[in-house]
Every structure is written in structure tokens, then in C-alpha cells.
């Protein structure tokens, strides 16, 4: 059994791209190998400067295989029992004699054929092709050129390792020829490490201060962090930062530094952001979660004997905290209320105006949603922090800083908290604002952005969503859900639209936005485990209240398996089909024109059901509502058995259609149950 080691040596790759790239490369190569019928076990390795694959259990060659090549039809190939020129020509082309040929049965009749024996290619040849193709098929979020060949890649390729057991494979890419040497840690290890064979890879690199397994680097970092946390304190967990650091280092080591207690007067949010965002430090907190004057930094080396490295880190952090302190003091000299005018200087979007304009729109929207002076105050101030030095320097603190400054100025909690929280949720995993005002402000801000952008034709595409409209919409939906707000999507979009002069036809924009929002609702419900057909049933009708739609979905999911309900769903589909394409004039059903007993029964059953359903819907008793609807099943079935809806008598026909239409409309106040797929089908 053979081993193949492949290493692509690059200049430092952005950390967040490494894992996806390695996965893509290994999956791509595995698929290509599979196509070539080469089995193997594959292991992957990476560091900021390398992507590597180790394949084990490889045979010497591909398995031999057969390939059938068709020749002339038998009818043409033989005449009077003898082979014709056609047959001989084919045999000759295949390099065999006619007697070596076979006959095969095809759809078009019998044909002459040659079963070619194709010898498996030697593995080394296949591997060369597979890996070159694998590398070329990698797609990166951002590419660069470095050579005249205009080959685009994430970073320049500097070395290649390709070892088949102990032999070098003749791979060449962009001027780099594969060899048996790899490179160790830039400063602690050798720059040219020669490998006798694939087995030496991990160990030789380890000797040269490169750990090629991210999981090992992660473990080292976590262990060293644990060991260095001061007694009685704990780490502020930051999984995203940990991942970045795992992929930013080849040989990690952790140091612990301090900063002056004076800086603890700064808000926690500021301290943590400064440490994490600019310096990639972990923060340390006490049992109550209060930040302590320590930090943990991850280096790309394991030693700092004289503490010199730590000293520099401390100095850099000090400079940043001093800046932050300066901002904290300077910003508070100008009260938030005085800054409203300054928002004229902060552009939101060229055609949508400044943040002052946006603030006015948000205020308008909030007034529509709820007459609440605290909400109004919060709305008037929620963007003002964009004019502060702190937020200009640390943009990720927007919202939070506004809330903190408001708190400092003595605004009541119902106001400052709303400002603090209104950007939430920033992702599906993040929480919605906890306060009601915060939630209202959040949806007002988000719907303003989405409607505004759609209105001027800024729509997210597959590769571009500069205003994060997907994220905004998702957050919007999530807040509506979590707070169970009773506003329909249509209402909210319409209100938001009122604030914009019409450039595009308003109806068209509204449809686009609602469609977009509905897809986000679908996503949220899917994440909660609602099946796709239930989603279709509930989302085909107007979403008058996101949480309510969810309750319906749950009720539907609960009842779907029941026999009566399934039958009713099928019957309803029938009703829907009959009604499709018919124009029904809005005229009342004429009882007199109901002739058959079955249609009379159906109509009476409907009349009985209607008020009950309306009450149940008003109370949110969806399960009962659906059960009642399901109770109609027999009556509907008998109707279809005995009554011809499309009667030749126009009067009867129209009356029946009107009745079915009314029934359909009633059902649709709950859900479009025709979307429910029969179980077991």
C-alpha cells in the first residue's frame, strides 16, 4: 500500500478562509479520485502558510476496466454469414480481428461491439492530474495576481511538496516545481526541510516549530489559557477569536499581560472591544462577569523569556485604551440631544439621505407603532452615537455606545436600553432586544433600511449585499416572532414606504419586499423544525402576525397525520382546482338554487362552521379550528360524489362555484391546506 503526501505552500492566508478551502480541496480531490476508482484514506493538515493532504492505502494502479465501443449494426456487418467491409473496418480501427468482436443488444437493435480492456493508469500519474485540478478548482472570496500568467489565487504559491512514498512526483504549478522540501516556522525553524518520505511530514515539521493540525494548535492555546488565568478569575469565552487565532499561528503560545486599573472606569463593552477587535486578546472577568485588568494574547511562538514581547503588547494596548479614554471623556462633553444636527454629516446612502433623515423616518414609524414618549426619545437619539469619536473609532460599538452615553446622561432605562439594544439581533443566534422599546426601535430601523434600499433598486444578490439586507430582514422577523408583535408584514412595509418619495412603483416594491420577508420567515420557521409543506400552507396566505403564523404552523403540523384532516386537505385541493381560472362574481349564494340535498348540507355545514371558526381564530385556537374544518370532511366528500359542480345549467353552476369560493375563503383564513402533502406518499 502506498502513501501520497501533497503540500501547497503559500504566503499567509486570511485565517477564516483556511478551513473552507481545505475542505473544498479535499472533497474535490476525493471526488476526482472516486471517479478514477481509486480508494484511499485521506487526512488533511493546515497552517497559515500551507494546505496539505496525506493519502494512505493507495494501490499501485487504477483497477483495469472495460469499455464497450459500438460499431456498425449487425444487419450491415454481416452478409451471407460473412463479415462486410464495415465490420472489418471497425475491427481494424479497434486493432483486433472480427472474431474478437461481440454483438450487443441496444434500443436500436443489434450492433457489433468491441469490449476494450483499459489498463488502469499508474497512481502517480492520476494523482498529479487530480491535485492540479483540485488546486485550480479552488475558489476564494478574494483573489490576487502575482505573475504574468495572470493566475488568480488567494496568495502567491511559493512551494509544493508531492511525495509518492519516497519519490517526488513531477507536479508543476505557476513556476513552482514540486519537491521533497517543506518549510518550518519562519523564525524558530529551518527554512528548508527535506523529507525522505511521506511519513516524516508531521514530525519533521513539529521539530521545526510547526503544528500542522489545527486541532492540536487549538488544544495548546486552550491549555495555556487555562494555565495562565489568574486565580479566582475566568476567561471571557470568545469562540470566534479562538478560531481566528488557531489559523493565524503555526506554533502558538499564550502570554498574559496587564493594564492599568484606571481604565476600568471605561464601560465593559469598550474594554472588551478594544482588546478583542484591534489586538485579538482574550479578556478576563470575575465571577460577576466584570472585566479585570488582564489580557491573554496568543503569539506565533512559544516563548517570551525576557517578557519583552509582553511589554510591547502592553504598551500598544495602553495607547489604545488611552485613546478610548480620551473619546469617553470628550464625547460626553456634548450631550446626545445636541448631536442630532450633526447627523446631517453622516451619510446613510446617497439616495436615501443622511442619518438625520433616517432618524426622522424611524421616529415616524415608531409613532405609528406605538404612542410612547420614551420610545420617541429613544428613536430620536438612537443614531446619534455615530457622531461620537468612540463609535467612529470602534464602529462595532454603535448602538451600545449610544445606550451607554444615554445612561451616563441619566436617561431612564426604558430609553437608554432601547438605544443600547436596537441593533439586535445581529444574527439568528443572537438574542432579540429584551425590552419592548428596544424591540420596536429595532424593527423600525430594520424595515426602514430594507424598504428604503428595495425602493431604490438595491437588492441583495448572490455575491453582494452591502447593506446586509438579509441579516436585517432576518433580525426583523426574529424580533416580530420573539415579541409576538401583532403587526402584519404588509402593514409594516406600507408604513415604512410612506416615508419615501416614490421612485419605483410602490406596489411592485411592496411585493418584492414582502416576498423577501416571507422567505426569511420561512427560514426562521424551518430552523424551528416546521416542515416545508406546512410552511407553504401557512405562508401562502397573508402573514398577519409572525408569531401567530407560527402557532398555525404548529397546529397544522400536529393535525396533519389524522385521517379526516388528510381527506379534507385532498378535498380542498379539489375545490381549489375547480375554482382555478374561474371568475366568481361577488354575489351571495342563493339558497333557493341549491337543489341537491348534498349541496344543501354542505352549505348549511359551512354556515354553521363560519362563526365557530371565526371565534376560534380570534382566540388563536388553531388546533380546534382545524379539527372543526376536518369535521366537514364527510359532507364535502358526499358533495363531490353526488353533485356535478360544472352543471350545464348556468345558474346552478354559478351558484355552486360561489359556494365553493366562500368555503375556500373561509379555509384560507386558517391556512392553504391544499399544500399539505399526504404522509406516506
Amino acid at each position: 500500500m502506498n502513501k501520497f503526501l501533497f503540500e501547497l505552500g503559500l504566503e499567509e492566508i486570511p485565517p477564516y478562509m483556511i478551513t473552507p478551502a481545505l475542505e473544498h480541496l479535499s472533497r474535490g480531490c476525493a471526488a476526482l479520485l472516486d471517479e478514477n476508482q481509486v480508494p484511499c484514506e485521506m487526512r488533511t493538515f493546515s497552517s497559515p502558510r500551507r494546505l496539505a493532504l496525506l493519502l494512505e492505502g493507495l494501490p499501485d494502479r487504477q483497477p483495469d476496466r472495460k469499455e464497450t465501443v459500438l460499431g456498425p449494426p449487425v444487419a450491415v456487418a454481416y452478409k451471407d454469414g460473412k463479415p462486410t467491409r464495415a465490420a472489418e473496418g471497425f475491427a481494424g480501427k479497434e486493432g483486433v480481428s472480427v472474431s474478437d468482436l461481440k454483438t450487443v443488444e441496444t434500443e436500436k437493435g443489434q450492433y457489433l461491439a468491441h469490449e476494450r480492456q483499459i489498463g488502469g493508469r499508474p497512481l502517480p500519474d492520476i494523482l498529479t492530474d487530480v491535485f492540479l485540478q483540485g488546486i485550480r478548482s479552488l475558489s476564494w472570496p478574494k483573489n490576487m495576481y502575482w505573475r504574468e500568467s495572470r493566475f488568480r489565487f488567494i496568495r502567491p504559491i511559493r512551494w509544493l511538496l508531492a511525495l509518492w512514498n519516497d519519490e517526488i512526483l513531477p507536479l508543476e504549478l505557476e513556476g513552482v516545481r514540486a519537491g521533497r522540501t517543506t518549510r518550518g516556522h519562519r523564525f524558530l525553524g529551518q527554512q528548508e526541510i527535506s523529507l525522505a518520505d511521506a511519513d516524516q511530514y508531521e514530525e519533521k515539521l513539529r521539530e521545526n516549530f510547526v503544528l500542522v493540525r489545527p486541532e492540536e494548535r487549538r488544544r495548546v492555546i486552550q491549555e495555556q489559557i487555562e494555565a495562565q488565568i489568574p486565580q479566582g478569575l475566568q476567561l471571557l469565552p470568545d469562540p470566534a477569536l479562538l478560531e481566528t487565532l488557531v489559523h493565524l499561528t503555526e506554533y502558538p503560545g499564550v502570554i498574559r499581560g496587564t493594564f492599568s486599573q484606571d481604565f476600568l472606569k471605561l464601560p465593559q463593552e469598550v474594554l472588551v472591544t478594544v482588546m478583542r477587535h484591534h489586538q485579538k486578546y482574550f479578556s478576563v472577568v470575575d465571577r460577576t462577569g466584570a472585566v479585570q485588568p488582564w489580557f491573554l494574547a496568543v503569539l506565533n511562538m512559544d516563548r517570551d523569556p525576557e517578557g519583552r514581547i509582553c511589554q510591547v503588547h502592553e504598551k500598544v494596548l495602553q495607547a489604545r485604551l488611552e485613546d478610548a479614554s480620551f473619546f469617553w471623556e470628550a464625547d460626553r462633553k456634548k450631550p446626545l440631544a445636541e448631536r442630532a444636527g450633526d447627523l446631517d454629516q453622516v451619510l446613510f446612502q446617497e439616495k436615501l439621505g443622511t442619518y438625520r433623515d433616517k432618524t426622522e423616518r424611524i421616529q415616524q414609524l415608531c409613532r405609528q407603532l406605538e404612542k410612547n414618549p420614551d420610545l420617541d426619545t429613544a428613536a430620536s437619539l438612537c443614531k446619534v452615537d455615530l457622531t461620537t469619536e468612540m463609535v467612529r473609532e470602534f464602529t462595532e460599538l454603535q448602538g451600545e455606545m449610544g445606550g451607554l452615553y444615554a445612561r451616563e446622561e441619566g436617561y431612564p432605562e426604558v430609553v437608554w436600553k432601547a438605544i443600547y439594544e436596537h441593533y439586535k439581533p445581529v444574527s439568528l443566534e443572537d438574542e432579540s432586544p429584551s425590552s419592548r422599546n428596544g424591540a420596536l426601535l429595532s424593527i423600525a430601523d430594520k424595515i426602514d433600511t430594507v424598504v428604503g434600499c428595495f425602493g431604490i433598486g438595491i437588492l441583495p444578490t448572490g455575491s453582494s449585499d452591502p447593506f446586509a439586507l438579509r441579516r436585517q430582514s432576518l433580525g426583523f422577523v426574529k424580533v416580530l416572532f420573539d415579541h409576538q408583535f401583532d403587526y402584519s408584514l404588509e402593514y409594516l412595509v406600507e408604513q415604512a414606504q410612506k416615508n419615501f418619495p416614490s421612485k419605483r412603483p410602490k406596489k411592485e416594491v411592496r411585493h418584492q419586499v414582502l416576498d423577501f420577508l416571507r422567505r426569511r420567515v420561512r427560514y426562521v420557521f424551518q430552523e424551528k423544525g416546521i416542515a416545508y409543506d406546512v410552511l407553504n400552507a401557512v405562508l401562502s396566505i397573508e402573514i398577519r402576525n409572525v408569531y401567530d403564523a407560527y402557532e398555525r404552523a404548529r397546529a397544522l403540523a400536529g393535525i396533519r397525520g389524522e385521517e379526516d384532516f388528510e381527506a379534507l386537505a385532498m378535498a380542498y385541493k379539489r375545490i381549489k382546482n375547480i375554482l382555478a381560472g374561474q371568475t366568481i362574481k361577488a354575489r351571495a349564494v342563493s339558497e333557493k338554487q341549491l337543489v341537491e340535498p348534498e349541496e344543501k348540507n354542505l352549505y348549511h355545514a359551512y354556515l354553521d362552521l363560519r362563526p365557530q371558526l371565526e371565534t376560534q381564530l380570534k382566540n388563536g385556537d388553531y388546533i380546534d379550528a382545524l379539527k372543526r374544518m376536518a369535521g366537514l370532511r364527510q359532507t364535502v366528500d358526499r358533495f363531490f360524489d353526488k353533485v356535478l359542480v360544472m352543471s350545464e345549467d348556468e345558474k346552478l353552476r354559478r351558484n355552486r362555484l360561489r359556494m365553493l369560493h366562500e368555503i375556500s375563503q373561509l379555509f384560507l383564513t386558517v391556512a392553504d391546506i391544499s399544500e399539505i402533502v399526504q404522509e406516506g406518499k
Partner: protein
Amino acid sequence: MKTFQEIIHRLLEFWMDYGCVIQQPYDLEVGAGTMHPETFFRVLGPTPYKVAYVQPSRRPADGRYGENPNRLYRHYQLQVILKPAPGDVQDVYLESIRRLGIPLEKHDLVFDEDNWESPTLGAWGIGWQVLLDGLEITQFTYFQQAGGIDLMPISAELTYGLERIAAFLTDKNSVFEIPWNRELSYGDVRQREEYEFSKYSFEVADTTMLHQLFDLYERESNRCLEHGCTLAAYDYCLKCSHTFNLLDSRGAISVTQRVETIARVRSLAVKIARQYVETHEQVPV
């Protein structure tokens, strides 16, 4: 080697030995070494080139009256362009850092993703900020586009932050404490300047005049282009850019004007780059 001027000397010596043309700072106000014609023009077109120079860089918005230990109205960059980017460019850079007396096995030097961009020049690149024990000391970029033109061959641009490096080497907490030479400190030489220029750009500058100047410079730049004086056109483009920076730091540019003004400077840079490529690159260097 522990003074500001020795550090500059040592770096220039390194790059001189490497074979670079050692140029001098451009004699106009610029915000970065990249804006020097020795970078902006030389990276365009196919002709190889290697150059190194110090460039005092003015950023009026960063002025702090000489009171902030880290931020300056004007700081010094050491700019290197290597065209085409050599295959071992990272190693050569690291060698230059070692030549400054920094033992890299005892420090933590990291290439941290950072892609640089200059909207006013229509330029951008891919690369890293180089962190030394957490301190940013260099912007390391593979130049991809300048003046809106895709570049080939690709130049490597190394921009050293001289004050940062000096503060690191001399172990000072404030830029002003760095010894400039054996007798005088950075503050002795420059602090007064920092104060006055901060005062000028934040409080004194006549914004009406600046708006007028911007229009005049823009017009003259276009005139130069019409007459085929590409390099002179670029001078006026640089003047526009600095004037914009002054207006911006003074708070005299509204937010929509900002977008528009940047677009005007960029438009000049693009025309200039195009004219340069069409005319100069026919003449062998």
C-alpha cells in the same frame, strides 16, 4: 543604532544594496508614500523598477496638537516598490527588519490580513499589515490596481511606519521621546510643527479659499492633460487631494459633497494614469 535618523539610514542602505533607486521625498503635500509619482506612475505599465524613499505624509485629520503620544499630523513613511514582486519578497522584507537589529526569533512577527485601498487614486492591493509584538510596523501590499488600471507586472509595496519602528527599537512610549539624533529628540525637532499645523487645519484654515483652490487645481489638472503634461497634471491632482484633506479635517465638507469630491479626484487620477500608460510607456526608461 538607536536614533530615528540611524534607522532611516540603515533601511535606505539595505534597499540601496538591494539595487533600488534611492529617491527623495516628493516636494508636494501627500498623505502617503503611495502618492509619490515614484510609486503612482512606476507601478503602471510593463517596465520593471525598484525604488526606495522616505516620504513625510500629512494627514490633517490625525493631528493632535503634539499631545498624543501616537498620532501625528505628519509622520514619516519609508516606501519601497519592487516591480515585479520577487518570489522571495517576504524573506527580503524580513531581512530588512533583521538588519535593523531586531532578532526575529525573540519577537512575534505576524502577517495579518489587511487589504489596502485608496479611493482617491483608484488604487488597491492585497496583503497584510505586519505586526511586531502586536505593533503595526509595515503595510505589505501586492499592488493590483492604480488609477483604475489593472497592473501587470505586479509590484510589491512595502510601507514602513518609521515612528512605530523607532518607538519599538528605542523602547519609548511616546513618539516625541524618540531620539532623533544623539542630541535631539523627535519632539525637539517636530513638536512645535505638530502643534501649529493641527491648529491650522482644525481652527484657522480658510475654507472658502480652499474650496476655490480645489476648483482651480482641478481645472489646471485637466488643462495639463489636454496639453499632454501628464506629470504636471498629477501634481495638481495631488494638490486637490491635500486640499480635500484640509477641508475634511476642518469639517467643511458635507457628507454628500465628500462622496462627490472623492469622485472628482479619482476621475483625475484615472485620466492621468491612462494618459501616462498611453504615452510614457512607449519610451524606454
